[in-house]
C-alpha cells in the first residue's frame, strides 16, 4: 500500500466519523425550562344611568290635575353584572316626600302630587319608600330580571311627568323648584 493510498483511507475514515457525529448532534432536541405567565382579566361590574335631559318645566293651573312637564326625559341604564345578580331596578325619588317642590316660602308640592309615566304607561305618584331618597318619596320606575343572557345589557325608560294640583287648590302663585333623582340598583 502506497502512502498515498494510506492517506486516502485515513481521510475517508475521518470524513465518515465527522459526518456521523454531525448527524447525531442535529437529531437531538434541546429544550429550555417552561416559564409560566399568569393571566388575570377583570371585568368590573358596573351600572350607569344617563339622562337625555336634566331639566323639566311646568306651567301650573290652580287646582288642575293635569300639569304636564314641557319635555319627557329618557333614562338609559347600562350594566355589566356579576352572575349572582338577580334583578336590576330603576328608581325615581325625592329627598323629602313633603316638599318635592317648594317656593321657599313654606308652600310645597309633595311627592304624592308628582307623577311619572314610564314608557307610555300609567302615571304613578312618588309615594313609595325605595332604596334611595326620603320615606314615601319614591317610585320604582322599572325592574329588569337578570338572567344568563343579559348580564351585560341596557334598557331605556322614557319618562313623562305631571303635577296634580287637584289636592292643592289653595297653592299660592309662585315658582316652585325641586330635584328629582334617577338611580339604578342591581341586587
Amino acid at each position, binding site marked *: 500500500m502506497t502512502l498515498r493510498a494510506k492517506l486516502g483511507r485515513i481521510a475517508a475514515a475521518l470524513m465518515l466519523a465527522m459526518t456521523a457525529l454531525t448527524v447525531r448532534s442535529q437529531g437531538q432536541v434541546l429544550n429550555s425550562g417552561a416559564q409560566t405567565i399568569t393571566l388575570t382579566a377583570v371585568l368590573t*361590574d*358596573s*351600572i*350607569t*344611568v*344617563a*339622562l337625555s*335631559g*336634566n*331639566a*323639566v*318645566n*311646568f*306651567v*301650573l*293651573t*290652580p*287646582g288642575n290635575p293635569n*300639569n304636564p*312637564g314641557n319635555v319627557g*326625559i329618557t*333614562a338609559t*341604564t347600562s350594566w355589566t*353584572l*356579576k352572575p*349572582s*345578580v338577580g334583578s336590576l331596578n330603576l328608581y325615581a325619588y325625592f329627598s323629602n316626600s313633603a316638599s*318635592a*317642590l317648594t*317656593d321657599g*316660602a*313654606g*308652600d310645597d*308640592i309633595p311627592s304624592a302630587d*308628582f307623577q311619572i309615566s314610564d314608557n307610555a304607561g300609567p302615571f304613578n305618584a312618588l309615594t313609595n319608600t325605595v*332604596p*334611595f331618597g326620603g320615606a314615601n318619596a319614591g317610585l320604582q320606575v322599572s325592574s329588569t330580571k337578570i338572567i344568563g343572557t343579559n348580564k351585560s345589557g341596557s334598557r331605556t325608560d322614557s319618562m313623562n*311627568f305631571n*303635577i296634580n294640583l287637584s289636592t292643592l*287648590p*289653595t*297653592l*299660592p*302663585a*309662585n*315658582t*316652585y*323648584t*325641586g*330635584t*328629582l*333623582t*334617577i*338611580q*339604578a*340598583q*342591581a*341586587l
Partner: protein
Amino acid sequence: MKTGKLFRVAAVALGLALATTMASAQALNSGAQAITLNATLAESLTLALSANSVNFTLAAGSATNNGSTPITATTTWVLKPGRTAVGVYAYFASAAAALTDGAGDNIPSSAFFIADNAGPSTALVNTVPFGGALAGLQLANVAITGANKNSSRTDAMAFNINLTGGTLPQLPAATYTGTLNIQAQATP
C-alpha cells in the same frame, strides 16, 4: 387529631360559603342622576260680572230709583305669598257726571248707590285706586292669609239712584247714561 382536622376544614369551607353569600347580597348602585324641576304657578286676579247693563226708571225727586237687575261680581285670584288683601271697587270716571244726558245735565256719583250682598246702600263718594276723585266705593276687602291665597268671592250688587239731593229734584227729563266700572286690586 384526624377529626380535628376535618372540623377545621369544614369551618373554613363554611366561612368561604358565608363570604360568598354576603358578597352576592351586596347591592350595586349606579350614580344618582338629577333632574331639575321648575314649576310656575302664575299670579292672577280676575273679575267677572253676571251682566253688563242696568236700566233705571227715574221718578223726579225720588230717593228710590232701583236698577232693573242686580249684578254679581265674581272675583277670583291666585296670589303670591306677601299679598295681604284683595279689594273690590266700583267707580266712575268723574264724580260730577256719573250719568249724563249729554246736554249738561248730570247725575253725580254721590247720587248713585250700591248695596253689596244685601248690605246698606252706599253712595260712590270715596277716592279709590281707580277712577275719578270722590267717585268710588270699596265694595269689599278680603284679608289674604295662608289659607286663601288661591280663592274667590262674589259680590251681589243692587243699584239705586237717589234724586233728592241738591238740584237733582229739578233734573230735566232725558235719558241719562253712564259707565260704572268694577275692578279688583291685590295689595301690596
